């Protein structure tokens, strides 16, 4: 089963469609990536390196900006990107998306 999909040709992120377990390996464009943390369905990983300040593109449009330099294959979420409109507030800092009800 595919682990990742890309929604639009212009996107610089791929979306996890099958949960990535802790310790998993994925091959992205010929490069092997090791995931120390689990990443849940729907989360984004970088298709290629993204510089701090660069736009994150999903659905072919900008969904915000990188707040630090992001490596290829890295999980993208609140820890390294932000809204260009209204800040997102949440309860805690861990967002791997895999703390669903057991």
């Amino acid at each position, binding site marked *: 089963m595919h682990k990742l999909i890309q929604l639009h040709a212009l996107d610089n992120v791929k979306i*996890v469609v099958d949960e990535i377990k802790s310790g998993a390996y994925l091959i992205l464009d010929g490069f092997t990536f090791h995931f120390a943390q689990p990443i849940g369905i729907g989360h984004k990983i970088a298709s290629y390196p993204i510089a701090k300040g660069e736009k994150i593109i999903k659905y072919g*449009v*900008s969904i915000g900006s990188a707040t630090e330099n992001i490596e290829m294959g890295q999980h*993208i979420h609140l820890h390294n990107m932000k809204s260009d409109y209204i800040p*997102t507030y949440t309860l805690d800092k861990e967002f791997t998306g895999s703390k669903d009800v057991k």
Partner: protein
Amino acid sequence: MQWQGYLRKDGRKGIRNYIAVVYLVECAHHVSREITSQFKDNPVQLIGFAGCYPNAYADRVMNALCTHPNMGGVLLVSLGCESFNRKRLEENIRESGRPVHTLVIQQAGGTKKAISEGVAWVQSALTDLLTVPLTLMTVADLLVGTVCGGSDATSGMTANPAVGRAFDQLVARDGIAIFEETGEMIGLEDMMSKRAINPQLAVELKKSVEKAARYYTLMGHGSFAPGNADGGLTTIEEKSMGAYCKSGDSIISGLIKPGDRPTQSGLYLMDVVPDGDPQFGFPNINDTVEIVEMIASGCHMILFTTGRGSVVGSAISPVIKICANPQTYRRMEEDMDINAGDILYGTNTIDEVGEDIFNRILSVAAGTATCSEALGHQEFMLTYKTFTPLGPGCLPG
């Protein structure tokens, strides 16, 4: 496709036939709840407005709900001293041809006597329900609204685009489709305004999104919940892109506010963000508030997409729950009418699920209970808001 519906005096057709017990202030809530609880297996539902202060929006919405095509009769329950205009509400309901009674707790003589009077009236009103004339209905008679709640990143990939397809079908068959939540169209105002039926409406659509962006910025908190982030959504723009595809591809025929009733077939955007400076806090404090607003604008039913797993239904109009996330569906199958999650695996296409949703609209209209209906969900909430009337460019029809 045709089915039997309920014909109301104003010519509108309903797909359900309910008695509502309506408390007009929180002080009348207990009595109303006690009355309603005597009718567990009957089409009797509890709704109400908690506030003692007057509010034009709450008044307008409540009048619209009490004369909704799915409404068969109304028991108004007043404490006696609250500011809700119960006389005008009763007159409007009576004029609409529905059985109505106002129970005033202070006049009835307190809790026990009021409950007793209320139960007796509801009993008689239930027999009146049986005399409502039936009529043939088609898709062209339907108004369907859509909301999303408990969204995650799968929502925008599966359930929401599938709803968009179903909406396209509804509009193509002369039904009315309503979508909302301008607070989740942040960043999309240009894209959306290109779909407007004329340039004046395009301007109004843009203004409504700008209003939402300003309002939420003032609130200091966008329309974003912790569960959205757990589920992979990072920013309001990202959430907005995902939410927006519920609207499908039809031309947008108009912009309405809660309680405005479109009469011409087409797709409409509902602006739920209050006008003017924030007076009462967040625009919609939960998903139920916007469901109620959709119903006030005439929606027979609501398509509700969810990723994290919302369980809510609604009083008055049934909720079809469409689950976007395959893991959530496995865990909460009993609460979900449609599984859109398999789109992620490629075992279902967006078009196929869209077709399923459209067919479910028809069967629910014909009387099939949704999961939330069967589970007894009858959520309702009416809060304080303030709106100015629609501008001239909003409803070109």
